[in-house]
């Protein structure tokens, strides 16, 4: 059996329940592991040992009193540093929020507390979740646990790396264009983006409001289902939160039995796809075929427009969402300001990193007078066409199967051109534009030992089915029993 910090929630919950392990012991093991590997991985922006141990002790007290709150009670869960935890730092990996301490809990935070989870550290990410490598963090670069000279992916790279390195048992990220699924693929863990509206965004630092969605990372699909169940559900504080029926997704894994009809979007297997990844995904497809699934090719004809559509909508929304960071009420305040207006120019110039500035400028431009119709409005219309493509495909199939990322983890500093970096998201962006659920599941390794992920894309609010399809593959393979040597 692997070390305690590499066990799944399912395994740990059983041990905690059987009192073979205490939540404090588990937390201590995770803290020790974190301290051992963090100098190389640097997955966290901050963590609070005494707070985590106090939460773990409270969990043990509950369990001793017969008041355990279920499978997550006592499980250390780390959050991407864009999710508010009361009285803890909340930075979005930006220097503009370097000293910000949240006075409130995000809804997912409250729900994890209600489920008994031990809220562990805040994971590094690209600044304001803008990026695909976590290199855009305003603080430090996170190393991929499989090769710390490579990126963990992004923007939720810290969440993926922390899990892969045994620094947490599960983590949360946020996914605007692939920011959970892509780092999951690059770090060899499971990462899921739920349907837009399934999980409340209240307390999630907004990047692009109409695309952002919080999603769980787990070692297994089963663990991912366990965490999703805890965080999903309508929230009166989020007007875009959907009144969907929330199921016990872990219990549902057994209820949904194949064979399923799976679609292969031909546009996702073209130029730019790393051959090793292509081959691994083909093998995953072959597995489903062997299980009796019907595999058919489908077309998502507007795929080539996804990237442009995404960058217009996401940057436009971001330019407005990030306007509040002006050095007035909170966050970094420039000491160079001449007056109250100059204060915002200087504070923003000093506080934001290059990628954030680039996207704010692009977003401001596409919304500015005379350009709105040509860019933003047009992109919103193309978004409609992209959505229709998916809904059309779902007339014939239950889910789509694609690579998650066109490339495995690349070297830190390798991609200096913004456009080249944007291409990392080509297989994940469409899912956000259409608001669909998507999951990345480990499906092998490159010859050089880097993880590969396969992406499954489901129908709106059919997370139970999507997780069951992913689980069928996951439980039949042992990729998740391999761990990086750190």
């Amino acid at each position: 059996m692997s070390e305690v910090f590499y066990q799944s929630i399912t395994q740990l919950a059983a041990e905690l329940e059987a009192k073979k392990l205490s939540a404090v012991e588990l937390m201590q093991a995770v803290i020790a592991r974190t301290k051992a590997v963090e100098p190389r991985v640097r997955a966290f922006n901050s963590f609070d040992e005494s707070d985590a141990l106090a939460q773990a002790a409270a969990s043990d007290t509950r369990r001793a009193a017969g008041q355990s709150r279920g499978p997550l009670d006592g499980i250390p869960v780390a959050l991407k540093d864009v999710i508010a935890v009361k009285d803890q730092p909340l930075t979005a990996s930006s220097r503009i929020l370097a000293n910000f301490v949240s006075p409130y809990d995000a809804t997912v935070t409250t729900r994890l507390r209600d489920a008994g989870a031990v809220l562990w550290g805040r994971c590094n990410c690209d600044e304001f979740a803008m990026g695909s490598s976590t290199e855009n963090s305003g603080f430090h670069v996170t190393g991929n646990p499989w090769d710390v000279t490579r990126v963990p992916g992004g923007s939720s790279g810290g969440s993926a790396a922390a899990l892969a390195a045994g620094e947490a048992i599960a983590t949360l990220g946020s996914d605007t264009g692939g920011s959970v699924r892509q780092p999951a693929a690059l770090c060899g863990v499971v990462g899921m983006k739920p349907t837009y509206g399934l999980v409340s965004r209240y307390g999630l630092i907004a990047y692009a409001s109409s695309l952002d969605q919080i999603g769980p990372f787990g070692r297994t699909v089963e663990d991912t289902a366990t965490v999703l169940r805890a965080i999903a559900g309508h929230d009166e504080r989020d007007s875009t939160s959907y009144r969907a029926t929330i199921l016990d997704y872990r219990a549902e894994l057994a209820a949904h039995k194949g064979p399923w009809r799976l679609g292969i979007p031909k546009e996702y297997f073209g130029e730019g796809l790393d051959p090793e990844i292509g081959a691994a995904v083909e093998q995953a497809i072959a597995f489903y075929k062997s299980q009796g699934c019907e595999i058919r090719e489908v077309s998502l004809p507007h795929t080539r427009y996804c990237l442009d559509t995404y960058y217009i909508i996401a940057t436009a929304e971001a330019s407005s969402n990030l306007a509040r960071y002006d050095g007035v009420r909170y966050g970094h305040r420039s000491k160079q300001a001449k007056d109250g207006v100059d204060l915002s120019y200087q504070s923003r110039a000093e506080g934001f990193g290059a990628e954030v500035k680039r996207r704010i400028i692009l977003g401001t431009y596409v919304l500015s007078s005379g350009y709105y119709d040509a860019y933003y409005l047009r992109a919103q219309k193309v978004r409609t066409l992209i959505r229709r493509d998916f809904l059309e495909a779902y007339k014939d199939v239950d889910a789509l199967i694609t690579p998650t990322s066109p490339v495995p983890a690349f070297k830190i500093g390798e991609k200096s051109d913004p456009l080249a970096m944007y291409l990392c998201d080509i297989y994940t962006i469409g899912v956000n534009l259409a608001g669909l659920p998507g999951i990345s599941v480990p499906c092998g390794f490159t010859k050089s030992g880097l993880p590969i992920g396969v992406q499954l894309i489901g129908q709106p609010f059919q997370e139970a089915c999507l997780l069951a399809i992913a689980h069928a593959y996951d439980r039949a393979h042992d990729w998740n029993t391999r761990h990086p040597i750190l």
Partner: protein
Amino acid sequence: MTSVLPSVSSVSPNQSGYEAVIGLEVHVQVKTRSKIFTRVAAGYGHEPNTLTDPVVLGLPGALPVMNKAALDAVIKAGLLLGCDIAPVCKWDRKNYFYPDSPKNYQISQYDQPICRGGSVEIELPGAARNVMGGHKHIPLTRIHLEEDVGKLNHFASDSLVDYNRAGTPLMEIVSEPALHSAEEAFAYLTSLRATMVYGGISDCDMEKGQLRCDANISIRPVGQTTLGTKVELKNLNSISFVRDGIAHEIKRQIGVLERGGVIVQETRDYDGMTGTSQSLRTKEEAHDYRYFPDPDLMPVRVDDPWKERMRAECPELPFPKQRRFIEQYQLPYTLTSVLVWDRALADYFEETVKLAGVAKAQTVGNWIVNDLLREHRKSQAAFADIKVTPAHLAANVKLVDSGAVLPNAAKEIFIEMFATGDMPEAIAERRGLKAAPTDSGELEQWCRDAIAGNAKAVAEFKAGKESAINAFKGPVMKAAKGKANPKLVDETLRRLLAAM
């Protein structure tokens, strides 16, 4: 909303040969318990930054949720003003930076406002104070809902920001450029404010910033149909300042043209204390607000049942009420022009009339306009706290009418009633203000004595001269030391004279 009075044009050519064209943008705070996009309390006069939460402060991660009551209020306002209520409207972000704006964007409505069209009925000054002036309807462009910003307090070397006001629901009511004088603008604001207060939509206290007004003003030679260059006048923070500021701006523009200058498109700040204005910014510095639909909020659909629910809550407005009061109660214009502008006062009048009888409507009106308002002003109490209820006033009117109390005594009773809240009978009794008892044998004797003492008047009365009866009343009243019930005196005299 149709006026029963003939519409007259107020466009009287200015003596200078110029005509002013004015459009008003009025911001009205909607009276809700909580803010427009979050449920922390809304209010005025609280300690700084005590009405905030993550949403109000624009903290990272906070999200807006609409307040149903704010939507109800704006629909009601739209119905009261005869607007078309949009079946579907949405929310947009208006992007601009200012330290009083917590998110540096304001949630507003850009191309799909909740109300379009409609009008505000105004009354123009009449020929004399007691003559009703002409009426006209000033057309509205639109009404939309948005969130208010915080408040910046400026000091010598820095500014302090209080976000209590931020997130208060705010209606922007935009008129067509259809006003032509400072007086019309004044009448427009007076009528609009009364409408909002009547509808319970806002208290419209300008001192508290609950109603704020910006004016777009241009002038053109009389007869010209195209509009002149407009100047936006800001910070008109009382209704008189609106009138004075507009009058000042019209004069300023005429002065510029007369001197051969050109009007510059600009925003000017009017200082009501000094009666001067200064330029804030010119058109070149105009904002680019980068409006786009707010992805955090869902669209609003207003269906007919919802509209009907709000219509049922719409009160009768002052002008229709005034026409009804004149028609139904035969009230003179001067009384109605006091009664109808205050909903509580008009309701008070009607309740009293219900108790005192329609025949006494004018008497009731006079009591309210003269005595009640005078005492109310002196007392400085809130109208709702007044101790004289319609039941008190109706009882007093009835006492006079029945002859039990003389008019002068009734005035005394009223003042005491106002101070104590006791019913008039009790006061009359206590203070000995009642007219003589009706069954007094004395009265008949006084009447007999009076008749006996004036044979000439008896003859005249018998000959058919009705007014001759008054000749007996003086001696009777004198004998009664003024406390005889005049009605009973009259009856007794007639009975005795008839028996002769």
